[in-house]
């Protein structure tokens, strides 16, 4: 076996893969969140739809997105491999095992939490990501006045089977900026008008929260980045930013849309 094959088949190597993919997914969450904040804009989805187009068509981001898909798959597959190994390491269990006495609940249930998140991802991506790429999406035409950006005219273009090209141009004569884009915003707001869908999101974000409260800090431990000087910062980020702020902001989107749109 080559050095790398040996390294990554060792227990510590497998853990390294978990921590690196996990941290990458954490970074993605930040980017994803910032983009999705466009949903809160009251512009009929113009900014959000423009952002969606940018994210799916800008080449560097496209490359990163493939890394992202691979990360998700690798993170899940390695979790499965590690868990199987862990099961084998204790073939006969305890009749009485008091895990709550020595470790936080989240740390002992990363598999369950991860599975919830994975199921959520499948639902989430098939509804939005797959729809966006291959679904029959309506379009929307946005005409923004160049002199007064508040003056926006939105014209929905329902799907009728015909190809509609994405367009983003300035109509100097009319004094307007014109955007014709796939209307993902509509799909999103329609989805979030169903209470059970909102509930699914909220539960999944709770799972994400618990997953990250343990996971973010844990990734640094696995990498060996443990030092009394910066570990308090990592703990803070893990709990308050990744464990609370980010999942809360994500959960706020469906709730906001359900309540106010």
């Amino acid at each position, binding site marked *: 076996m080559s*050095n790398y094959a*040996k*390294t990554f088949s*060792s*227990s*510590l*190597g*497998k*853990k*390294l893969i978990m921590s690196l993919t996990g941290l990458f997914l954490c970074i993605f969450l930040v980017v994803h969140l910032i983009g999705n904040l466009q949903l809160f804009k009251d512009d009929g989805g113009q900014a959000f739809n423009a952002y969606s187009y940018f994210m799916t068509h800008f080449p560097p981001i496209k490359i990163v997105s493939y890394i992202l898909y691979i990360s998700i798959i690798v993170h899940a597959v390695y979790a499965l491999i*590690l868990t199987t*190994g*862990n099961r*084998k*390491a*204790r*073939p*006969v*269990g*305890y*009749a*009485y*095992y*008091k*895990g709550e*006495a*020595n*470790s*936080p609940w989240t*740390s*002992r249930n*990363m598999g369950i939490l991860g599975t919830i998140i994975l199921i959520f991802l499948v639902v989430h991506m098939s509804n939005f990501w797959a729809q966006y790429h291959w679904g029959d999406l309506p379009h929307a035409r946005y005409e923004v006045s160049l002199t007064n950006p508040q003056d926006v005219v939105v014209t929905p273009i329902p799907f009728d089977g015909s190809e509609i090209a994405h367009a983003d141009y300035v109509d100097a004569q009319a004094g307007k900026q014109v955007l014709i884009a796939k209307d993902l915003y509509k799909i999103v707001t329609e989805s979030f008008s169903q209470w059970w869908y909102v509930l699914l999101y909220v539960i999944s974000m709770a799972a994400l929260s618990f997953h990250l409260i*343990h996971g973010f*800090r*844990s990734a*640094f*431990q*696995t*990498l*060996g*980045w*443990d030092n009394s000087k910066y570990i308090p910062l990592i703990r803070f980020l893990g709990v308050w930013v990744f464990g609370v702020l980010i999942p809360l902001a994500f959960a706020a989107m469906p709730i906001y849309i359900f309540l106010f749109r």
Partner: protein
Amino acid sequence: MNLTLKVWRQKNTEDKGKLVTYPASDISPDMSFLEMLDVVNEGLIKKNEDPIHFDHDCREGICGMCSLHINGRPHGPKQGITTCQLHMRSFKDGETIVIEPWRAAAFPVIKDLATNREAFERIQQAGGFISVNTGGVPDANEIPIPKVIADEAFNSATCIQCGACVAACKNASAMLFVSAKVSQLALLPQGQPERYRRVQAMVAQMDAEGFGNCTNTGACEAECPKEISISNIARMNRDYLNAKLFKDEY
């Protein structure tokens, strides 16, 4: 005190084993947990029954031989002590106590509550040493070691090799044990020449023994009778990855 014990009985490694209930009567709160078992065993012997087998030796918390999983926790309900230092006043009169052996594929049960921890021996033999022969070493004061480093190495060196970390871990991982051994020598100047060779050899042996993978739950640290910190695990991870990915010569 009167107690009900549910004790794991297993004739040998091949036997399936089961929990058997025994009464423990007239127990003094001043008894240690093992002395309570002694009393129960004397009762069994008088009936010419096989007593409950369990490992123990020094009975003062340092040899690391005793190894009982008591009411769901290695070394019982109190923190920072071994089973032999646990006293019956930590239990309530009338309580039911479940006593099981360490559970791990790498620690097969020998009989009843005694398990085979030779896996730890082999990990030690793979690299838990500094290769110096007797004689021909420099004067002890020729190597100054900062007090903080010496103290930190000492903290790692307090490991008594009991296996509670493995027993506590939901994955039966031996990372705390191995990392404590790796850390002690990685911290000290004397351990530097073999630092990267050692960590690779010991981790490889640990994996070969069939221990589980660390998921950083911290259960090992919480249950360790010597309260060894999981920062040792981080240190070992760092050294291992460093050795594997960046150290050309190892």
